[in-house]
């Protein structure tokens, strides 16, 4: 097992270097000049040149790339031309917000998606199955941006049940940072009012973000459950008088869950890099907005930093899913 994990980690590093090379090349061949953008529209050429020199943008591309790799080995991801901050500081500031949002969102998707998928399979072609099909098709078809705005208008503006946007109320101070996840930090500090505030703020963006994942989980889990429920071991279990709940929720689900788990891993990694629209609608101060603003300003080093971070997260999420696979399925354990 240790050898397997070691191999996967080595592969992960190779993948990240490949990712860096591709991102570096793409961001540098795009037209536009970050120094010129940072200097402003009225800046004379010598001012633009000074900024280019200050950020090392006047060096040949291979030299820039080697310097960047050297920086990574020293734990540095360069400096943002737009914000003037080290990229590591910016990422530490914005990533926890995205991580918290995506994690809560995925938890909602799992907690709703698995039971709904299971029930749909059990009640195949029943009205309940059709209803969940509407949910799952909508989850894929409805644009997240639109859904967010509609939820915002209905639940925040018209009914006033939930806050409109942001991560905390405007006058609330964030809890003392331990994990930088407000829900956890507020609990650790025993600040229930802040926890309540943070929870109320995360509901709308998390529900909006979870819909595509929820749709996929329902559909995959339903299909796998239908197949599992037709297997001999289920007939055997029923014949032995094992209760319906145990038959469905333990025997069938355990086997049907593996493909769902793989999909959850992929979705989780994808969501970490795909929060921009939700962050924009709900003013969620996450990495999606940071990445977009950096891309608009053609600020290379933050773009590279974000890509590296999202890529690493995506790969780690998949590694964890593979490990969970091994833990759940004895056959794959043997192979590993």
């Amino acid at each position, binding site marked *: 097992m240790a050898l397997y994990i070691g191999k996967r980690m080595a592969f992960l590093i190779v993948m990240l270097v490949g990712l860096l090379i591709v991102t570096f090349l793409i961001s540098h061949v*795009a*037209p*536009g*000049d*970050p120094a*010129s*953008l940072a200097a*402003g*529209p*009225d*800046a*004379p*050429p*010598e*001012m633009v040149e*000074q*900024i280019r020199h200050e950020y090392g943008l006047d060096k040949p591309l291979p030299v820039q790339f080697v310097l960047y790799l050297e920086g990574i080995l020293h734990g540095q991801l360069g400096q943002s031309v*737009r*914000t*003037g*901050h080290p990229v590591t500081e910016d990422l530490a500031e*914005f990533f926890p917000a995205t991580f918290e949002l995506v994690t809560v969102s995925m938890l909602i998707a799992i*907690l*709703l998606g698995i*039971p709904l998928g*299971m029930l749909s399979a*059990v*009640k195949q072609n029943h009205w309940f199955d059709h209803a969940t099909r509407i949910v799952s098709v909508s989850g894929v078809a409805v644009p997240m941006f639109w859904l967010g705005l509609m939820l915002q*208008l209905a639940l*925040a*503006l018209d009914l*006033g*049940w*939930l*806050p*409109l*946007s*942001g991560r905390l*109320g*405007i*006058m609330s101070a964030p809890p003392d940072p331990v994990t930088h996840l407000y829900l956890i930090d507020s609990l650790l500090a025993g600040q229930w009012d802040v926890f*309540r505030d943070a*929870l*109320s703020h995360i*509901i709308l963006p998390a529900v909006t973000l979870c819909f595509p994942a929820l749709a996929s989980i329902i559909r995959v889990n339903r299909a796998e459950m239908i197949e599992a*429920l037709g297997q001999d071991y289920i007939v055997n279990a029923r014949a032995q008088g094992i209760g*319906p*709940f145990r038959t*469905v*929720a333990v025997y069938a689900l355990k086997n049907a869950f593996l493909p769902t788990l793989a999909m959850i891993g992929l979705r989780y990694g994808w969501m970490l890099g795909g929060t921009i629209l939700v962050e*924009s*609608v709900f*003013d969620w*101060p*996450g990495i999606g*907005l*940071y990445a977009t603003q950096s891309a*608009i*300003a*053609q600020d290379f080093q933050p773009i590279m930093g974000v890509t590296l971070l999202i890529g690493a997260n995506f790969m780690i999420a998949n590694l964890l899913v593979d490990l969970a696979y091994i833990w759940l399925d004895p056959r794959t354990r043997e192979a590993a």
Partner: protein
Amino acid sequence: MNFIPARMKALPIAVTLAAAVAFTMSGPAQAFEKTPQGNVLVFGGRQPVPNLDPSQKYDWSTRMLQQAVYDALVKYEGDPAEIKPWVAKSWEESDGAKTWTFHLADNAKFHNGDPVDAEAVKFSFTRTLKIGKGPSWMLSSVLAPDGIEVVDPHTVRFHLKEPYAPFLSFLPWWYILNPKEVTAHEKDGDMGQAWLTEHAAGSGPFKIARWQQGTLYGLAALDDYWKGWPHQTHPAGVIYKLMRETATQRAALIRGDADIVEGLSPDDYEVVKSMPGIAIENHPGMTTFGIMFNTAKGPTADINLRKAIAYAMDYDALLKVYNGAATLEDSPFPAAIKGHVAVKDIPRQDMAKAKEYLAKTKYADGGLTLDYVYVQGLEEERKIGLILLGDLKELGITVQLKPMTWPNMTALAEKVDTAPAMIAVFTTPVATDPDAVAFQYAKGSWGKYYGSHYLDDPELEKMIIEARQTAEWDKRAPIYAKIQERIVADQPEVFGMLANRRWARRDWVHGFNFSPVHFTGEVDLYQLEIVPK
């Protein structure tokens, strides 16, 4: 057989979610935020402030907060914008606008109590010039660090390299920093740049209270601000809350989560203006919209083609794009610019004249295609492109709408060979001095997005240089009148319109003091007051 177990029918998750919503339910906010210190005003804006250092950056949101925490020698106020004494209580120019002497207020002090003196002024100007970013370009060609003289603690003198009449008009954007605080936070000789991105060393009416990058920026008012306050009911603080989407801004205003917002769409303003408790600030701005031609390369190098396009444009349709909240340009200079004159021959739609001019080109029968490049996502620019497309069809000219990201668009404008035939350009002058607009048509502006015209008119160039080096306004004014006529005659762009600057505010916000020299959504926070009903 019923496969649904009884335990699964209750949908406990739905109940849990409903409980979570109930647990966190919050009623809508009714008004500004009330704190023990007083009322705090909430401004909802779309643009972040990644770097507050006045020597490194300025854009509308950054400058709005800079002006709140820093002071400058002079300040723009009012409509029309006038330069008012601020840290400098008086000044005089001599030597034909080559030497400028400023006498400083005796009581001006930084937030930590240090005096705002001539040394601080010299330090701040030198720092900006040395860093070479932000507003540095405004004066770097005429002012060197060794040209700044401390005459005494309350007198500072600037010796310019050459006469420069617009000098004073740029000074409101050169803020004064506390040298002691900046020096104390220097790191690796960076002149305090890293520290000042999220901290301030100023003397302005507000100080930084909270700085949550990407979320909000909180300012606390200084009751004992050295300059005093225009109103007794000034807010105890201001929170600049980031709201990226206009739909969110609108909802926040209606809910009372925000007291004032900028940047709503033209349709949004129509919706909220009739709502109770909401007032609209609607003022003629100084931001011009034009369709800039490449006058040096390609078909638009022919002035007759440029004239034909200018006469084919439906100008009334431009105003409709903004639901009427705009005025047509009657000169290359906005009306708020000193020395503005209405140029009587500025083109308006006249298809007969358009065809007449087209006949003088080698495209008399049309049959050519021209690119119209605009910023992707700017709906107004796209709509104007569609108007142009329809109008030029009558001349047999095909218009290709090319949306581009801002960096890609400015990259094209950087070289004459790649500058598009037509490019949509919004331009806001940084000062009310006419040089701020006139110089956009000089060779020194080539390669900038507003200089993608590559206009080469030696006579015009000569007048622009002469006017900026002339000290007496009585002599400058006639030159600028000629410059305006000359630019219109050259037709480097379709002179479009000036969209009004608009904000929506709750009616308890008073003291809104518009000044056309402010950028996009910029507001003078110092002037605002909260008057609860």
